[in-house]
């Protein structure tokens, strides 16, 4: 008797479609509830003694930054699954995750910038974290640009996977180098220090909520992509059939 692992079962697109159809409404609802609860709690917190009310931006900035990195990790894992295990849904996962990751990265950058203006006085601050997120944004753009520049889908998926894996290997080096660079050019004085526990609870709820939202969006993106590929396959079959009907070699 054969038992299948979950990834093996998920190799069947139809299984994935059925499962995700059931899960998605729950996932989205939980995400929405947690986000609303977390942010409402967040708005009820008192002003921070250093940053005043602008600390409230943290409740969306930190989850966005965390998700921007997690999304890239997901793309790397999916790319690995494609190249090494040839998992049928690996590329769908990678392709769906890229624009969502890029969006969260953008949100992290914008909210970070808006947080920085009242806190440090400038819209942009070349601190280690923001700089790393900016570079991460370029990595996402690169992935999407590469994929769109190659017409043949199977080739595009594999080359993008190679790029993603090269990126994930270099990413720690980039972070390390940016940290180094930052400590050279930024003498102390950056607001750091422990987080007052009153802020921790809303942050946690918000972070979990946004993570669930990410997975819901990713799942939806995968569903769309699976349908898109079915459409393409059928369109190709139609063209093929029509060409043959007219005695032309497709």
């Amino acid at each position, binding site marked *: 008797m054969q038992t299948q692992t979950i990834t093996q079962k998920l190799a069947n697109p139809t299984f994935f479609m059925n499962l995700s159809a059931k899960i998605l409404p729950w996932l989205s609802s939980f995400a929405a509830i947690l986000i609303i609860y977390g942010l409402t709690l967040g708005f009820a917190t008192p002003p921070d003694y250093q940053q*005043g009310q602008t600390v409230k*931006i943290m409740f969306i900035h930190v989850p966005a930054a965390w998700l921007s990195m997690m999304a890239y990790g997901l793309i790397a894992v999916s790319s690995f699954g494609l190249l090494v295990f040839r998992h049928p849904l690996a590329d769908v996962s990678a392709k769906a995750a890229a624009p*969502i990751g890029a969006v969260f990265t953008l949100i992290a950058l*914008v909210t970070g910038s808006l947080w920085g203006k009242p806190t440090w006085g400038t819209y942009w601050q070349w601190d280690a974290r923001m700089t790393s997120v900016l570079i991460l944004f370029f990595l996402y753009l690169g992935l999407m640009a590469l994929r769109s520049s190659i017409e043949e889908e199977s080739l595009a998926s594999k080359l993008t996977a190679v790029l993603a894996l090269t990126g994930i290997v270099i990413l720690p080096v980039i972070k390390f180098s940016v940290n180094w660079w930052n400590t050279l050019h930024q003498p102390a004085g950056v607001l750091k220090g422990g987080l007052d526990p009153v802020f921790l609870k809303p942050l946690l709820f918000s972070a979990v909520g946004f993570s669930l939202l990410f997975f819901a969006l990713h799942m939806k993106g995968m569903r769309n992509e699976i349908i898109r590929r079915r459409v393409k396959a059928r369109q190709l079959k139609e063209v093929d059939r029509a060409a043959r009907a007219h005695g032309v070699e497709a």
Partner: protein
Amino acid sequence: MIPDMGPHAAFIWMSYAIMTGVLAALIAWLILDGRKQSRLLAALEARSAKRSDK
């Protein structure tokens, strides 16, 4: 009553507004794209069903 967000309130509201706007756009795109693909698929499946009926 909206709580007083201090002297930098504009930045806070803008952050939340931009986040909401961007996410709403993303969700809208995903939903609309999904509907469009499903419609296309349904149309194609209807066509092939008709063909096999002939």
